[in-house]
C-alpha cells in the first residue's frame, strides 16, 4: 500500500480534514489530539520566538510555521533517545517533539548560561545529547555525509538503531548531499533521509534549484527507494515514516522520503521584507489554506471529537506561559562570560589558548589577573 516513486504525494486526509482513505486504527481521537497538541505547541513556540526577535532579545530565527506535520510526524515515528538525528536549522518542531526541553531551546536562542551549547552557536542551532539530536550546523547539506557515517557505525556496531537526516529542498543541490546519500546507499547504511521540501530556498524556487520533477526521484539513481508524501498530512507522514523506518531497521538500507510542504513565513528574520519580492500573495494564501493544524482539527471534527475554541485557546495560552517562563528562567541564568570562549575548542586547553585566555582575563579585569 505504501509505494515508492508515486507520481502524487501519498496522503490520507484531504485539505479540509476529510479522510480520503481508511484511517489506520492507531490514529484514535486521543492520539490525534496528542498530535494536534504537539503541532500547536511547535507553532506557538515559533510565534513567541518571532516576538522575541522583534524585541531584540535574540538575533536570528528560522520559522517552521506550516511545516509542523512534517517535523512532528517524523519525531513521532522514531525511537527517541535511541535513533539518531542529524537535523538542519529549521528543525525546532522536530527537536521539541523529540523532547528537547523548551528551556534548553529558548536558552540556546537567547545565548544564556542555561544554554547547553553555552552561547557559542548562533540562535536556533541547538544540540541535545539525550535525544541523540546532533548539533545543527548552518552549512547547508554538511550534515548529510556524517549522517551516512553515523548510520554506517550503527551497522558496524550491530546496534538496533537508525539514523535520521533532515534537510531542505535546496540542500539537495550541494555536492555533500550527493556524496552522503551515495555513501549510505553503497554501504546499505540504516539511514532515513528526509527532505522537508518547503519549495523555496530563500528566494530560489524548486524550479530554479533542480530540473527533476521532484526530489524523491533522485533516490532511484542512488539505488534506494524514494517516497513522496503530503508533508502537511501528519497521518501520511507518520504512516510512511514508520513503514520506511521499519524496513530500514530490518536491513533494507537507506531510503529517501520527500515531504511536500510549505514555509508560510519568511526564510529567516533577515528575509522579512524581501519575501514580498519573490513570492506571490496567492501562493502563500493557497498554502496557508492547506494548514496542517486545521487539517487535523477538520479530521477530529469529522470523527465527532472536535477541538473546541476554548480548548485551542487553552493550548495556545499554555504554550505561551511555558515559553514566557522559560525566557524568564533563561534570562535569570545570566550571560556566559568570556571564559567559555576557550573551552570545548579541544578536549584539553592547549598552551596557546591558555595564553590567549590569560591575555583576555588581564584585559577584562584591567590588568588584575
Amino acid at each position, binding site marked *: 500500500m505504501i509505494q515508492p516513486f508515486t507520481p502524487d504525494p501519498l496522503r490520507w486526509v484531504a485539505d479540509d480534514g476529510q479522510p480520503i482513505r481508511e484511517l489506520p486504527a492507531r490514529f484514535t481521537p486521543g492520539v490525534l489530539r496528542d498530535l494536534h497538541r504537539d503541532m500547536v505547541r511547535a507553532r506557538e513556540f515559533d510565534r513567541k520566538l518571532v516576538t522575541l526577535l522583534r524585541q531584540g532579545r535574540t538575533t536570528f530565527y528560522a520559522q517552521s510555521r506550516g511545516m509542523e506535520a512534517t517535523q512532528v510526524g517524523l519525531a513521532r515515528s522514531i525511537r527517541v533517545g535511541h535513533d539518531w538525528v542529524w537535523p538542519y536549522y529549521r528543525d525546532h518542531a522536530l527537536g521539541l517533539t523529540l523532547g528537547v526541553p523548551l528551556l534548553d531551546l529558548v536558552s540556546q536562542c537567547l*545565548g544564556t548560561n542555561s544554554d547547553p551549547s553555552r*552561547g*557559542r552557536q548562533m540562535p536556533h542551532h541547538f544540540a541535545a545529547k539525550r535525544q541523540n539530536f546532533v548539533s545543527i550546523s*548552518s*552549512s547547508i547539506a554538511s550534515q548529510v555525509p556524517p549522517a551516512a557515517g553515523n548510520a554506517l557505525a550503527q551497522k558496524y556496531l550491530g546496534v538496533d538503531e537508525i539514523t535520521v537526516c533532515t534537510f531542505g529542498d535546496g540542500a539537495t*543541490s550541494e555536492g555533500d548531499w550527493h556524496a552522503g546519500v551515495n555513501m549510505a546507499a553503497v554501504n546499505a547504511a540504516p539511514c532515513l533521509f528526509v527532505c522537508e521540501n518547503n519549495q523555496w530556498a530563500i*528566494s530560489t524556487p524548486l524550479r530554479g534549484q533542480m530540473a527533476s520533477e521532484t526530489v524523491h526521484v533522485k533516490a532511484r539513481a542512488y539505488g534506494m527507494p524514494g517516497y513522496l508524501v503530503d508533508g502537511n498530512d501528519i497521518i501520511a507522514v507518520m504512516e510512511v515514516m514508520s513503514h520506511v523506518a521499519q524496513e530500514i531497521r530490518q536491513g533494507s538500507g537507506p531510503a529517501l522520503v520527500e515531504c511536500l510542504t510549505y514555509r508560510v513565513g519568511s526564510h529567516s528574520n533577515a528575509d522579512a521584507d524581501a519575501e514580498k519580492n*519573490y513570492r506571490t500573495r496567492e501562493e502563500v494564501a493557497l498554502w496557508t489554506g492547506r494548514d496542517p493544524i486545521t487539517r487535523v482539527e477538520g479530521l477530529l471534527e469529522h470523527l465527532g471529537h472536535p477541538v473546541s475554541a476554548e480548548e485551542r485557546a487553552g493550548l495556545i495560552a499554555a504554550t505561551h506561559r511555558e515559553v514566557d517562563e522559560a525566557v524568564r528562567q533563561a534570562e535569570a541564568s545570566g550571560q556566559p562570560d568570556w571564559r567559555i570562549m576557550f573551552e570545548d575548542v579541544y578536549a584539553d586547553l592547549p598552551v*596557546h*589558548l591558555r595564553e590567549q585566555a590569560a591575555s583576555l582575563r588581564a584585559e577584562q579585569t584591567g590588568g588584575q589577573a
Partner: protein
Amino acid sequence: MTATESRPTAQGGGTQGPRTLTLIQAVTEALREELSRDERVVVFGQDVAARGGVFLATAGLQAEFGERRVFDTPLSEASIVGAAVGMAVRGMRPVAEIQFADYMGPGFDQIVSQAAKIRYRSGGQFTAPLVIRTPSGGGVKGGHHHSQSPEAYYTHTPGLKVVMPSTPYDAKGLLKAAIRGHDPVILFEPKRLYRAAKGEVPAADYTVELGRGAVRREGRDLTLIGYGGVMPDVEKAAQALSKEGVEAEVIDLRSLVPWDRDLVLTSVEKTGRAVLVSEAPRTANFMGEVAYVIQEALFDRLLAPVSQVAGFDTPYPYVQDRIYLPGANRIAAACVKTLNF
C-alpha cells in the same frame, strides 16, 4: 589615492563630482558599471536575482540587465565557483557571489584546484579571470557561520589574488580592477562595514590597482597595519594615541595577495615599530607573513618586536561577538606595549 591608481576620467557622463556612498552601494555601482561596460560580464550566485542578494548588493541588477546577465544558481558553491571557472576559461567575465565567506567550503576545491591552478598547469594556455565576492568578518552577531575570516586559506593558495577593502572608494575601485584583470580574484567584503562605512566615491570611472596599500594617516612613532573590518578601530586607536602624543602611521593593506611590501617597509623603516591588526584567528593568520617580511627586511632597524593583534584561536563565538574582535582598546594597548618595549 595613491599615484598608481587610475584617475577618474571624463567619460561616463552625468555628474562627475564625488558622492557619498556606503560600501555596499559602491559594490552595486561597480557591478552595474561593469555590466554596462562589458557584455562578457555576468553576475550570479544564490539569491542574487529577485532577492538582490542577502545584503542587497545586487539589488535591481537583474531588472536592469536581464536574466542572462544576472541570475540565480542552485544551492551549490561548487557549482557556482566551478561554473565561473568554465565560463571564464571560455571567454566570459564571471562575477560570482558566495552568500557568506563561511560557505565557501563546498566550493573550496574548485577555487584551489581549478580557479587557482588552470593558468599554471596549462602553461598559460588557459586562464580563469573570475571574481568571487563574498561578505566576511564578524561584529554582526552572526555566530560562527556568518562571522568568520577565512582569507588565510586563500592567501595560502598560489594563483589567487585576495583583496579586502574597507572604504566605499576602494570597494568600487578594487572590484572594477578585479573584473578587468586577468587572474582569479577573491574579494572579501567586510560585512559590518557594508552600511557603516560611508565615503566619497567619484561618479567617473576609476580603478584601484590590486596589490597597493594606502596610508590612512601619517605618523612617525609606529606603523599600524590592518585591512578590512578592523580599519575603523585601527583608526580610532590611532586617534586615541594621538591625544597622548603618539603619532601612529596607519596603513590599510587593501590587497593581501599581492600585498604592498614597499609601502609597509618604507613606513616601518621610518617608524621602527609595527603593530599588525586583523580579526582572523591568530595561528597562521595572514599578518604572520607580514611580520615575517618586516623582520627579515628590517631586523636591525626595529626598535621593538613586531606585534600582532588578532582574533583568538577559537571558533567565532556568538555571545562574545564583540569581545572576540580586536577593538580600539586592544589595538591601542598593543601599541603602548610596543612603544614601551
